[in-house]
């Protein structure tokens, strides 16, 4: 036993002596935490926020989003648009270049790179999950007029077009490089090219990825003066407890907090409560089943709508989540007239009234000729703690109103499969907005959208509002039509039941600034600074 103690002690002393050898001492390095890894470096195949954030750092598009979510020119130096608002001509910066991992200039970024990239995005061969992106932007065709001039024709004017150019799916890629790499393209730091403010230096899947600054980027000098780091390290950490210890030990600069950690850290310096764009709602299987008739009954749907105390549910999640007031989340989009937030403009289209819910339920039961309504509530167990907690809360409030509720827990992929097949009753699901416009949500519930409208909600009035909104060139009218459509969908029909908007709490080390959170599209880390 003594020997063992001696061995152990020696070991610790030895380890203590070797200590922490930091070789980044003189460099300005920011280390950020991400709880998921990059899934794909290829901006045309990626679908997740983590991959997109990485791409906005080492790549760039014609525009980028500022901290308020408004677009500004990035790789495009200037642009012109015709009177009808349907033909855009972009001039690409002369100093925009492609760089390899070593930071060597490979070639200039040209309009041909954009032309190829966009064709690649929509090609059947690639089967990109974002191949609909250009259509959403109202893009009809595109071509390179010369090396530095890129022309895009829209089938109708679009208020979201310029903002959508900041989304990685529209970023350029270099054709001969992509073809030369073949299957290996974008599977490592060596097999991608950079054209953004950073260069991808390394990627160890499941562990970390590192970016070094691109000193030749057009805003590099100004950025360095503001405190732009030499290197940004993203560390993949799933466990929030050890991550918090690592943060407090000074080894990382941000930490994502779980619900339980929020209370203890609320007053901490650098604590940030951020609102995410994800809107969680209950999808009711209205018409997507041969046997189920319960949710065709409007009173039953309305009873569910009134039964939920959304404030209490959001509060119980304790992670910065807020009660939903409609299917459009807060801070998603501002009115084209005066910039008022959609939610503020509309007000709440949901309410909590348990007495009314009971009344409606009684009516519904009578109409259906049943004594009891049992809801099988489907939710995902691997979609975060907040989903599990929310499902339990929803069960509680529905039971308060007189429903009987069984919780059906599945893995996310299985939940989605069941919803696609219409093999569910009520499901807790979510949608993350791809762009800052109500359309990203409104498109989901039109009757012809069989991919997303799992419950097959069908309303002529709603379909018409959405179709008219997308057809009109009058932005104020469009806005009004979306406001009307939401009222029809939620308030009038209870076609979907909004529950909460996801929040996220994190701590950012004082001195670290420039992380721009957007409720739609991609958070922006390309202007991060550390002093």
């Amino acid at each position: 036993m003594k020997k063992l103690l001696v061995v152990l002690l020696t070991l610790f002393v030895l380890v203590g002596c070797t200590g922490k050898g930091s070789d980044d001492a003189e460099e300005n390095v920011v280390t950020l935490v991400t709880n998921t890894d990059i899934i794909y470096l290829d901006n045309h195949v990626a679908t997740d926020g983590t991959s997109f954030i990485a791409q906005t750092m080492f790549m760039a598009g014609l525009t980028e989003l500022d901290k308020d979510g408004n677009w500004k020119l990035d790789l495009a130096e200037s642009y012109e648009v015709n009177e009808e608002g349907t033909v855009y001509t972009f001039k690409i910066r002369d100093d925009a270049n492609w760089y390899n991992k070593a930071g060597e200039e490979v070639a200039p970024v040209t309009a041909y790179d954009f032309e190829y990239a966009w064709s690649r995005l929509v090609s059947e061969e690639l089967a990109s999950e974002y191949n609909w992106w250009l259509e959403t932007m109202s893009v009809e065709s595109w071509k390179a007029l010369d090396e530095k001039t890129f022309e895009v024709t829209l089938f109708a004017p679009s208020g979201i077009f310029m903002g959508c150019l900041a989304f990685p799916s529209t970023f350029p890629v270099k054709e001969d490089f992509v073809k030369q790499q073949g299957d290996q393209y974008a599977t490592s730091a060596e097999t991608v090219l950079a054209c953004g403010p950073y260069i991808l230096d390394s990627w160890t899947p499941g562990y970390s990825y590192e970016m070094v600054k691109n000193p030749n980027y057009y805003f590099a000098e100004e950025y360095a003066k503001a405190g732009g780091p030499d290197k940004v390290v993203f560390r993949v950490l799933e466990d929030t407890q050890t991550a918090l210890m690592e943060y407090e030990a000074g080894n990382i600069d941000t930490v994502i907090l779980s619900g339980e950690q929020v209370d203890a850290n609320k007053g901490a310096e650098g604590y940030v409560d951020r609102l995410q764009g994800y809107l969680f709602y209950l999808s009711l299987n209205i018409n997507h089943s041969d046997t189920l008739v319960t949710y065709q009954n409007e009173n039953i749907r309305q009873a569910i709508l009134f039964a939920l105390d959304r404030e209490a549910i959001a509060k119980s999640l304790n992670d910065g989540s807020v009660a939903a007031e409609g299917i459009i989340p807060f801070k998603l989009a501002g009115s084209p007239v005066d910039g008022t937030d959609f939610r503020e403009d509309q007000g709440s289209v949901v309410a909590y009234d348990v007495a009314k819910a009971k009344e409606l339920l009684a009516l519904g039961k009578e109409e259906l000729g049943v004594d009891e309504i049992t809801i099988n509530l489907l939710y995902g167990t691997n979609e975060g703690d907040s989903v599990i907690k929310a499902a339990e809360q929803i069960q509680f409030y529905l039971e308060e109103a007189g429903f009987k509720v069984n919780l059906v827990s599945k893995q996310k992929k299985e939940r989605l499969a069941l919803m696609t097949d219409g093999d569910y009753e009520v499901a807790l699901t979510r949608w993350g907005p791809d762009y800052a416009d109500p359309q990203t949500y409104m498109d989901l519930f039109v009757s012809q959208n069989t991919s997303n409208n799992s419950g097959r909600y069908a309303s002529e009035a709603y379909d018409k509002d959405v179709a008219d909104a997308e057809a009109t060139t009058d932005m104020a009218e469009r806005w009004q039509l979306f406001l009307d459509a939401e009222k029809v969908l939620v308030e009038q029909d209870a076609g979907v039941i909004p529950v909460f908007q996801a929040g996220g709490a994190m701590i950012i080390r004082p001195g670290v600034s420039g992380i721009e959170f957007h409720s739609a599209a991609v958070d922006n880390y390309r202007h991060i600074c550390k002093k």
Partner: protein
Amino acid sequence: MRKYILKRVLISLATLFVILLVLFILMDLMPGTPFNDEKLTEAQKTLLFAKYGLDKPISTRFFLYAKNMLKGDLGVSYAINKNFAVSDMVKDRLGISIGVGALAMLIGTVLGLLLGILAALNHNTWIDNLCSAISVIGVSIPSYVFALLLCYFIAYRLHWLPILFNTKQPFISLILPAIALSVSPTANIARFTRSEMIDVLNSDYILLVQSKGVKNWKMIISHVLRNTLIPVITVMGPILVNLLTGSSVIEKIFGIPGIGRLMITAIQENDYNVTIACAFVYSVMYIVTMLFVDILYGIIDPRIRIAKEDK
């Protein structure tokens, strides 16, 4: 002996083939697909299925997979790191998991044997009780509790070791995870060693050895330990495989990119090729370890060797 080993190897290979088949069928029966995403349309799903050959019948896919596997090609990942070669993903992470696991096994075996021997030699004294108490605690407290305690006290408060895994200091940053992982094997091996050794110490042949006047330490090493180790090795086989194939929880806590975490993610994401590859690697390691344990028996206990040669 050679014939025996050859026979065992052939049986192992056949077992592995059956395991692969069962895995393939189970994967096919798993609900959902790798391409279930809110944002994916039916048409896109069909395209993706065709792209990865998942629209073909299961028999065709199985034989294609088995054929490619022999060439070392385990397919590509569909969901975790899209289009990555699974063989690369598994290779990189298996290395780290084996590193942590082997270190944990080393600590667990040394500590476990020491505790067990100490307890057995001091049977029914306070030392025995203390060792037993340590074993019970080790078995009953889950490793992640130890992991967090170690992180907090050793790394966070005392700064003796890094909190998280770090590729720049791979050995040093793997010590804490290895200690956390070794707690349960230490306890298991200690308990097993103790009870086996007490049995051996009470046996007639030890009495004979003692009456022959063999020195105490010599008796323990060449007579008692040798006979104690045979059953202990039986339990060590599965423990070793368990440790080498990674612990999802420990990997999560220490931020280690290991194979345990990969397998859990693969199952959740329905990433067929990755799940099959991880499960298959697990099976291979298990079968190889069992084969190794069997051979080891023969070395430690001549009776087993002779009995097997007779067959």
